[in-house]
């Protein structure tokens, strides 16, 4: 994995809502077997000011880059528990 280093000043902390939305998108893609371009989700790596959470986000992106969908989905569930938000990867509604 190459390092996408960004200057500190550009890094932004995401709101809980934004994190929730991003995780929701990722969970759906993982369930459906869609290829995830991790470069498009860089913002999530630095998405939290909480160090512990930031590490979990990094771990998640690593799992996604390794196409380890099951582990990534588990990580999303853990984040969900930590953030106390609800992600519904199981609800594969209309993909059309």
């Amino acid at each position, binding site marked *: 994995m190459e390092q996408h280093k960004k200057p500190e000043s550009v890094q932004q902390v995401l709101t809980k809502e934004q994190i929730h939305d991003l995780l929701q998108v990722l969970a759906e893609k993982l369930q*459906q*077997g*869609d*290829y995830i371009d991790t470069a498009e989700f860089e913002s999530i790596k630095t998405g939290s000011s909480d160090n512990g959470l930031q590490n979990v986000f990094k771990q998640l992106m690593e799992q996604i*880059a390794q*196409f*380890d969908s099951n582990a990534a989905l588990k990580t999303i569930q853990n984040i969900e528990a930590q953030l106390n938000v609800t992600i519904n990867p199981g609800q594969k509604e209309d993909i059309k």
Partner: protein
Amino acid sequence: MNEKPVILIVDDVPTNVQILANCLKDNYHIKVATDGLRCLELVAATPTPDLILLDIEMPGMDGYEVCQQLKKNPVTQNIPVIFVTANDQEEDEEKGLQLGAVDYITKPIRPSIVVARVNTHITLKLQHDKLTAMATHDQLTGLYNRHYLFISANKKIAKAKRHHEPVSFIMMDIDHFKHINDNYGHPVGDIVLQKVATIIEQQSRSEDVAARFGGEEFVILLDHCSLMDAQFKAEKYRQLIEAERPEQHVVTCSFGVVQMNPEGEAIDSLIKRADLALYQAKENGRNQVVIGE
């Protein structure tokens, strides 16, 4: 709705998947499986892949076995498979092609070769899909054609008989269609046909077979549908068509509705009985639904 063709990449080595995905992601919707079982799972889900890039050496089910499974299943057997593999012996390639793969690419992966071959096979696949659609659909209305009705009806009727499920059949005909064509011209006649077809399509369930049977005649084969439900449906079509007024003209239809004999019944017989009921509807003054004997 996915506009881009879908490519499923199956490889147990993440680096290989990344290389393939990187050279294809701009033009294709990419799906990924890192083992054979997941591949079969994704193939069964929508959207169905238009092409599969399949590694051979994988833990568990190998690529050959995956390919065999895909080719055995009528739903997946037409999805082109390209093996992408480190196995570069002649007999490996021969085996792969004998199993039904359309192409065989050896590793190390050269992106430009992969892209060129994928583009070729995707083009062929989409042309094949188009031809299939043309062979089974009516060009003017987009509904199924008569040919497809007969193919699917035999399967549906056999299945319904096995599971003791009701099948109903509606035959309908646009009233005084010749008058419309003669007085307003064929382009207006075509619009009327299309409007009627759209109403039929919109009111149909995905499992229904709605077909243009002849000039201004349409049929709908409804499985899991009782005679009463079919009658209700036909009445709904009748009302919607009457209310539609394509090109400001009042257009009505007459309907014959029958239910398959629970002991089983050939499609020809269903058509004959529905046609008689339809004839009765015309005799009774048109714009109505008649249940057949």
